[in-house]
């Protein structure tokens, strides 16, 4: 049986006659059943009965299908070892049921029992493989232990390490009973400690010894030691001359060294980190490893960080400096990458030095060693694409005096001395980036009194660069950045020589300039990221003209540099905020996010997409099908992908890592997002859902305690921000990123909606209707109780509000209240007084919903009505969803009430009239809101159908930023110059408009019932 074709029809035993073999291989099941039955009666060999049962399973009857399970059960009850061929037959026959039956309770133990009886058979490994494919760790561990015992001291070392690895995996798996966990932990640990001891004591470990020999065996030892051993034992082993981190490094293996540094950092063992780093770097200096093999930036960072935490910080840093100096002395022989790492290490150390020894020059207070080091780095690397990213965190640490000196002396001098035109331009681009960066650093501002001459001041700071009163960041400096960047942009565009040089550069400098201008415009527009409980619309407090200018300018740049993914990603987010999902999708598609990278990158476009533009799901190909396919392929088996490859190759650390990765992927927030977004969109258009969300194989193991993980990759975003503020992705996103809490709330809400929507098949007519009704009622009450408890738990977690947009918070709160309300309504007997909580729940729902409706319908005075509505679809989606949840909850209660009345004419089991009345009130409020939304969409549609839209768009973009000082015009004019004026902007305006129309058209088809 091959690893990835386990459903291939097994070959029958050679002893089986040709007619039966032929019928079996032809899939002629009636003949197989007839012949197998005949042979069984003749030979009394149970194998023929197994063939018959397996063939019967291929027919449609339920009883025949159950026969295999009964046969497996019978084998389990026997104490003797089963026949392997019979097991193979049953495993193949029951293949469609294997996901539903617990392998570890059925076929797994049978295979383990067989291996125990036949330990030397080559098929024993096959049994291990089968158990691993179904991730039955209990049986797999038993088989591996049997194999290890059988092949003790064999030259095939894998048996021993399979056994240890599986014992360890079992010890950390939920499959292990609490009672056995300790035993398995100790067993794995002791076996490896013994192996380590053998290695330590041997002059040479032979393949037949039970010591640690290979790299993978050593890694396994340290992983198990870390999980189940003591800190002291781990640290002692790290220093082992044969197995330790440095000895591994000497052999060209970095894995253990890096793992150890991370572990030690979490333990705060800075002295040991320092010791290991020193030892590693000395290996390079002494020639025990290639000199620069140890010169990863990370080792220098850790070494410097550890020194800064030493008791004698100055002396420890001096030692780091001394070692670095030796490497600097040999730098000319190094690869470019290592030269750069060494330069960055010099910076790292300079910035770790205590402020008291910054050695400022007497003439220039700001000319410290830190500024000098950054200047030296820039001299060497200013023309590299990553130059800004390499040093921005250092520049952001400058004091104001240092910043000023850096900009006015270091950068300015480099600019003045650069005769080469293209280099001059690259420096100008860097200068603009630094100006932007420093404008966002708090040290460039000083506090300004909040009240001056009895007048309250609305600007709390004074910029130390330009002396203007400002808020953070300094608006004046940002405007200056824009003007300078635009000037440079124009200078390039107007110089044919520079244009000719661009293809030879790493990147078109106009792209960098556009990103600086775009970012500065977004900052000026007050795009500061979502404050969930304050702003229901992400663009509510954002200046539309400046925002649109930023989008227009970046979009214009995309035409020039279409292959830049950073710019594309930024524009995708900006268009989603603008409500232009279809256009954002056009920008997204060329990036070809497919296969493996989807889990990390898809949330950038798809998160919340059904709330922005459900019409996106109306295309000919299901929008999220590639994601679904990806997960289906990845989770085809219960085991981690490629796990048997790792076992058969003896890659023990890979086994552990693959297991961990698989566990994370199965708990992916993106996976939950995929399902929830599709279901929401399907409901929008009245489509049929394929069962409840908890019927999906992707969610079967998810319970409230499961931590769902967000792994969104924002690494390619052009991030000019300093560490003092949030990174760019945080303020160009519609709301907080994917999170465990949001994913759980969405999952629970889907389950609630599934419950409301469930209708038994039309031909379902139970014989004992009353009995079934009581069971149904109990099931509904149990489900509501579970959902209500879970929703309340997640909603009330301290951090939840910060992880949701305001409309999401209202929606999930209302769902939580509705589930509680339904539970009370359905469980209160007509004879009892209605609990006081019910009217309270009802009024809380109405009040939360009213507040959501009000904030949705109230346009801020500074924004045009239509613009606000188009950029606020997310809130509208939640008004609709909340209203529908209320309406469907009410309908569920009414339906339940009617059904009970019809079933029990005495009326005893029907609902309390007050409960019904409360639901009627909710239904009425919801119905009213849905009419409002319908009207709202119609109004938007009419508005977008009117003439003069291009002019209106251009007016929104360039027309109305009349600041008191008139600078707004200057910025708009500068942007207009870059984008080719109004004429250049018209095409863009047309695309935005078309995308809005697409979105509204999609909303127009959304069902409001």
């Amino acid at each position, binding site marked *: 049986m091959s690893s990835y074709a386990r459903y291939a029809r097994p070959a029958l035993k050679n002893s089986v006659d040709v007619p039966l073999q032929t019928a079996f291989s032809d899939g002629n099941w009636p003949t197989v059943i007839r012949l197998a039955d005949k042979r069984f009666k003749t030979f009394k060999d149970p194998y023929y009965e197994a063939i018959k049962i397996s063939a019967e399973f291929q027919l449609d009857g339920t009883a025949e299908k159950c026969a295999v399970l009964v046969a497996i059960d019978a084998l389990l009850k026997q104490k003797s070892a089963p026949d392997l061929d019979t097991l193979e037959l049953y495993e193949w026959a029951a293949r469609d049921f294997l996901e539903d039956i617990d392998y570890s309770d059925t076929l797994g133990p049978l295979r383990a029992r067989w291996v125990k009886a036949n330990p030397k058979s080559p098929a024993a490994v096959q049994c291990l493989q089968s158990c691993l494919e179904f991730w039955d760790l209990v049986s797999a561990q038993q088989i591996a232990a049997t194999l290890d015992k059988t092949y003790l001291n064999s030259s095939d070392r894998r048996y021993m390490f399979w056994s240890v690895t599986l014992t360890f995996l079992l010890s950390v798996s939920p499959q292990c009973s609490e009672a056995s966990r300790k035993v398995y932990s100790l067993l794995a640990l002791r076996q490896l400690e013994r192996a380590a001891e053998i290695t330590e004591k041997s002059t040479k470990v032979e393949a037949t010894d039970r010591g640690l020999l290979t790299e993978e065996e050593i890694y396994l030892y340290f992983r198990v030691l870390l999980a189940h051993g003591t800190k002291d034992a781990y640290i002692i082993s790290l220093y082992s001359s044969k197995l330790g981190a440095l000895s591994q490094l000497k052999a060209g293996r970095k894995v253990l060294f*890096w793992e150890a540094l991370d572990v030690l950092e979490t333990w705060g063992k800075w002295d040991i980190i320092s010791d290991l780093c020193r030892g590693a770097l000395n290996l390079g200096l002494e020639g025990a490893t290639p000199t620069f093999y140890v010169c990863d930036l990370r080792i220098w960072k850790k070494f410097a960080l550890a020194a800064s935490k030493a008791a004698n910080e100055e002396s420890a840093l001096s030692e780091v400096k001394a070692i670095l100096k030796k490497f600097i002395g040999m730098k000319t022989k190094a690869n*470019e*990458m290592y030269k750069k790492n060494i330069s960055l290490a010099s910076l790292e150390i300079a910035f770790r030095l205590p402020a008291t020894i910054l050695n400022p020059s007497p003439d220039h207070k700001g000319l410290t060693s830190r500024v000098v080091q950054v200047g030296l780095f820039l001299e060497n690397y200013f023309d590299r*694409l990553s130059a800004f990213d390499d040093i921005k965190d250092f520049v952001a640490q400058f004091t104001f005096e240092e910043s000023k000196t850096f900009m006015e002396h270091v950068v300015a001098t480099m600019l003045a001395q650069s005769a080469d035109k293209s280099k001059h331009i690259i420096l100008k681009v860097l200068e603009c980036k630094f100006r932007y960066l420093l404008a966002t650093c708090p040290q460039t501002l000083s506090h300004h009194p909040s009240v001056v001459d009895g007048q309250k001041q609305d600007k709390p700071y004074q910029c130390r660069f330009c002396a203007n009163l400002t808020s953070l960041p300094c608006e004046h400096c940002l405007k200056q950045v824009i003007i300078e960047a635009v000037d440079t942009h124009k200078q390039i565009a107007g110089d044919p020589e520079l244009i000719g040089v661009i293809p030879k550069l*790493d990147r078109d400098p106009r792209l960098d300039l556009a990103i600086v201008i775009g970012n500065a415009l977004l900052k000026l527009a007050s795009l500061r990221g979502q404050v969930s409980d304050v702003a229901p619309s992400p663009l509510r407090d954002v200046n539309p003209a400046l925002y649109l200018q930023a989008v227009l300018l970046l979009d214009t740049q995309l035409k020039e540099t279409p292959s830049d993914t950073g710019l594309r990603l930024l524009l995708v987010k900006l268009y989603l905020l603008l409500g232009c999902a279809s256009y954002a999708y056009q920008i997204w598609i060329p990036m070809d996010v497919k296969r*493996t*990278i989807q*889990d*990390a990158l898809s949330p950038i476009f798809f998160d919340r997409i059904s709330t922005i533009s459900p019409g996106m799901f109306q295309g000919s190909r299901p929008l999220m099908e590639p994601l679904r396919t990806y997960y289906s392929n990845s989770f085809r088996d219960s085991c981690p992908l490629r796990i048997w490859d790792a076992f058969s190759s003896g890659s023990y650390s890979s086994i552990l890592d693959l297991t961990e990765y698989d566990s994370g992927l199965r708990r992916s927030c993106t996976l939950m997002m995929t399902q929830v977004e599709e279901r929401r969109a399907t409901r929008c258009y009245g489509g049929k859902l394929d069962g409840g969300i908890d019927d999906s194989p992707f969610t079967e193991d998810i319970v409230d305690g499961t931590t769902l993980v967000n792994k969104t990759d924002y690494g390619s975003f052009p991030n000019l921000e300093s560490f003092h503020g949030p990174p760019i992705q945080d303020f160009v996103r519609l709301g907080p990123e994917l999170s465990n809490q949001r994913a759980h709330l969405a999952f629970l809400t889907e389950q609630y909606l599934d419950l409301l929507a469930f209708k038994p098949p039309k031909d379902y007519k139970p014989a004992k209707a009353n009995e079934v009704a009581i069971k149904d009622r109990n099931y509904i009450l149990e489900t509501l109780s579970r959902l209500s408890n879970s929703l309340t738990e997640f909603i009330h977690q301290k951090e939840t509000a910060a992880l949701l947009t305001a409309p999401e918070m209202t929606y999930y709160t209302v769902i939580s209240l509705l589930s509680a309300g339904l539970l009370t309504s359905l469980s209160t007997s007509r004879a009892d007084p209605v609990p006081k909580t019910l009217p309270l729940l009802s009024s809380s729902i109405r009040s939360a919903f009213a507040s959501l409706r009000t904030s949705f319908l109230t346009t801020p005075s500074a924004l045009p009505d239509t613009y606000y509505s188009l950029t606020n679809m997310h809130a509208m989606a939640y008004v609709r969803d909340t209203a529908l949840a209320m309406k469907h909850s009410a309908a569920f209660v009414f339906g339940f009430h009617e059904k009970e009345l019809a079933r029990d004419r005495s009326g005893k089991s029907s609902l309390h009239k007050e409960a019904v009345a409360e639901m009627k009130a909710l239904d009425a409020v919801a119905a009213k809101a849905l009419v409002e939304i319908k009207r709202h969409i119609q109004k938007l549609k009419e508005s977008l159908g009117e003439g003069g839209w291009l002019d209106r768009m251009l007016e929104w973009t360039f027309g109305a930023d009349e600041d008191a000082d008139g600078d707004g015009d200057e910025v708009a004019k500068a942007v207009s110059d870059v984008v080719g004026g109004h004429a250049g902007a018209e095409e863009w305006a047309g695309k935005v408009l078309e995308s809005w129309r697409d979105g509204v058209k999609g909303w127009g088809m959304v069902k409001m019932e």
Partner: protein
Amino acid sequence: MANFRRFRPDDLNKLSKCNLDPLTETYELGFYLQYYAKWPSLFQVAEDQHGNIIGYIMGKVESSPDVYKFSEHYLPWHAHITAVTVAPEARRLGIGKLLTEQLEAAADANNAFFVDLFVRSTNYKAITFYKSMGYSIYRVVKDYYGDHSSDPTQHSEDAYDMRKPMKRDLKKEHIRENGEEFEVDPSDVW
């Protein structure tokens, strides 16, 4: 700005800097994990200071199946470079060279006779790069690629099978000087 280390599965969540580049192919999850499962020491990455992957190399060690033992195209125990890529922002720093050297060190540790790779015959930049690292053309695989990188009217493109001898090939028996003159069909290579 860079650290070199062995690949970890979690790196697949940090591939955007490399894999959003149109010149880098994104494979199915099982493909990456197969390499990590079978040949973890031959899957190396370069990461930047934020943990983003800015370069990686995937390789394997193998020989042709035994059934081809007596074929003239039989490949003895060797390492093969399956994919190597460097993010645009990290180019011109020798990262590709360092990753290749690390794979070669792993190939030596695995006692391989040589390291081989396939490259489009029109990818002059890559060919020059590999030649500078000691690789030479061993044979030309006719129409190996189903498309042409620079000529849309062509439906296929030849590959160069390039090799570099490792320590085990003491007599340099697995390379040849006039490899351009040896043409084979795609069905002759594994």
